[in-house]
């Protein structure tokens, strides 16, 4: 009798502890928002919101400081946009190949390769880019420097492939086999089936993969920091050095006096990044949910 009571009390405690563990993720997210807000907001004592987001000049240490992050917003946009031109075709192509075309024996090695690609640390990509891609691009395209937006885009594109591919693969796998069989039975080839049945059915998942790949590219720091040249030019040009939002934080945080407008500005840059990836993620999830309901 007593042990039954004890096990019931234990049961309650366990449920409570596990629930608390689940709450930690929410708490962490809440704390991130709170601290980005708390440390980022004071920048608006120095500069207006419009002046911050739309300002053309970033001279954080001059007196008075110019704290405009437009060059970095456009820089991140440029690098991310071109990275997607690499990541989306390669990622979706790989997912379709692995899921629909490749013989069963090649499937697992390919999946492992994609997972390994996801595992390469970003600093190693950055180092590889700095040592190999930068000099190669400089020589090939005859540029004054190889540290350009293009270099960063190429590397980021490759880095985002696993994100796009894994979500696209799930989307394609969620399309019921009966749909494929019906199409083949009507005399369509495998390619016609893939193009006119599987891809349209999976398109919201493919879009979700693209959005999350975009989030991955925008948030990437070390690779961009090492290969993009880091000069905040306006407007940013593909064949020239650029500065991204992430690289700005990484470059300048260590040398900034705590509590200075510069310090707060860097946290506000973090807030901009956070809001942007949050939006992408929420939209991606809303879009991605559609396919789960369909399957």
């Amino acid at each position, binding site marked *: 009798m007593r042990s039954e009571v004890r096990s019931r009390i234990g049961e309650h405690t366990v449920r409570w502890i596990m629930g608390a563990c689940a709450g930690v*993720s929410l708490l962490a*997210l809440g704390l991130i928002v709170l601290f980005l807000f708390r440390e980022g907001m004071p920048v608006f004592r120095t500069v207006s919101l419009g002046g911050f987001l739309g300002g053309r000049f970033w001279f954080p240490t001059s007196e008075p400081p110019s704290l405009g992050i437009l060059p970095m917003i456009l820089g991140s946009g440029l690098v991310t946009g071109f990275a997607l031109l690499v990541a989306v075709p390669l990622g979706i192509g790989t997912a379709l190949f692995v899921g629909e075309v490749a013989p069963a024996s090649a499937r697992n090695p390919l999946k492992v390769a994609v997972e390994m690609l996801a595992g390469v*640390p970003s600093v190693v990509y950055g180092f590889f880019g700095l040592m190999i891609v930068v000099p190669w691009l400089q020589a090939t395209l005859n540029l004054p420097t190889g540290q350009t937006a293009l270099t960063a885009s190429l590397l980021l594109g490759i880095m985002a492939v696993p994100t796009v591919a894994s979500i696209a693969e799930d989307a394609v796998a969620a399309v019921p086999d009966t749909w494929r069989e019906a199409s083949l039975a009507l005399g369509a080839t495998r390619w016609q089936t893939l193009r006119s049945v599987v891809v349209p059915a999976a398109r919201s998942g493919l879009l979700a993969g693209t959005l999350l790949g975009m989030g991955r590219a925008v948030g990437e720091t070390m690779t961009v920091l090492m290969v993009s040249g880091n000069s905040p030019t306006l407007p940013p040009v593909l064949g020239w050095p650029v500065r991204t939002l992430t690289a700005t934080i990484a470059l300048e*945080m260590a040398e900034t006096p705590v509590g200075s407008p510069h310090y707060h500005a860097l946290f506000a840059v973090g807030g901009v990044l956070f809001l942007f990836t*949050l939006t992408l993620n929420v939209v991606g999830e809303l879009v991605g949910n559609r396919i789960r309901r369909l399957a």
Partner: protein
Amino acid sequence: MNRVWSQRTAFALLGLSALAVFAALAVVLGFVTVRGAPAISWEFLSAFPRRGMTEGGIFPALLGTFYLVLGTVIVSLPLGVGAAIYLAEYAEQRSWIRVVRIGVNNLAAVPSIVFGLFGLAFFVKALGLGVSILSGALTLGLMVMPLLIRSTEEALNAVPKEFREGALALGATRWQAVRSVVLPVAVPGILTGAILAVGRAAGETAPIMFTAAAFYTPRLPRSPLDEVMALPYHLYVMATESTAFWRTRHLQFGTALVLLGLVLILYLWAAVWRARIRRRKRW
């Protein structure tokens, strides 16, 4: 005929994109291995950097990364597994599960540099832990938690419902059923998730830049409140900021090879193990 050729062309293009992914991995691995291998020696792995980091080894960075990863696992594994057990085995209210899941997914999407900023503001400054192993491990721990929750949940969901029902029918409480029936079956799946988390934590630079990593420390850390050298940060500063960085390229390639090797071995181990678990389902 036309149909046959358009299929051939299309499939060839798809195959080409898969090949490009394979090639990218091979090229990165190949270059780092070929140029890094000559630098690897027992001395490189076991010695301190010397002469302003232009000679010597990477031992403190290797050990620092080990400490950081160990701390990350201690922080995140119980929390992540607990959260997943709650989501998979306990939570009944669908709306609450959804809220938690949205939180987890959004935490997973936070850029690593933002984790770095948060770690600086919260652990380093607000909690006063300073730039330390502890601050770095806590920051990395929060970062890898979504990964652990997802993989643990997947492992728990793969355990057939009949296992739980059998235990409950024999009079076990829910926790007894989870602890002695469900968890033992799910352990391999949970561990592969943990290995991936270790790989991820070991390779990250941005979250530890402001929270744990030091350019150079003359001695090994003695407590969790000491700052440390870490492999990824060491590679970054050696390649970009150290004195005479153009003369130490061989050391940098060696460091890159050690880091890449460590992380990829972990990822490969997890991938192979997971494939084996999936194949070996006996029920």
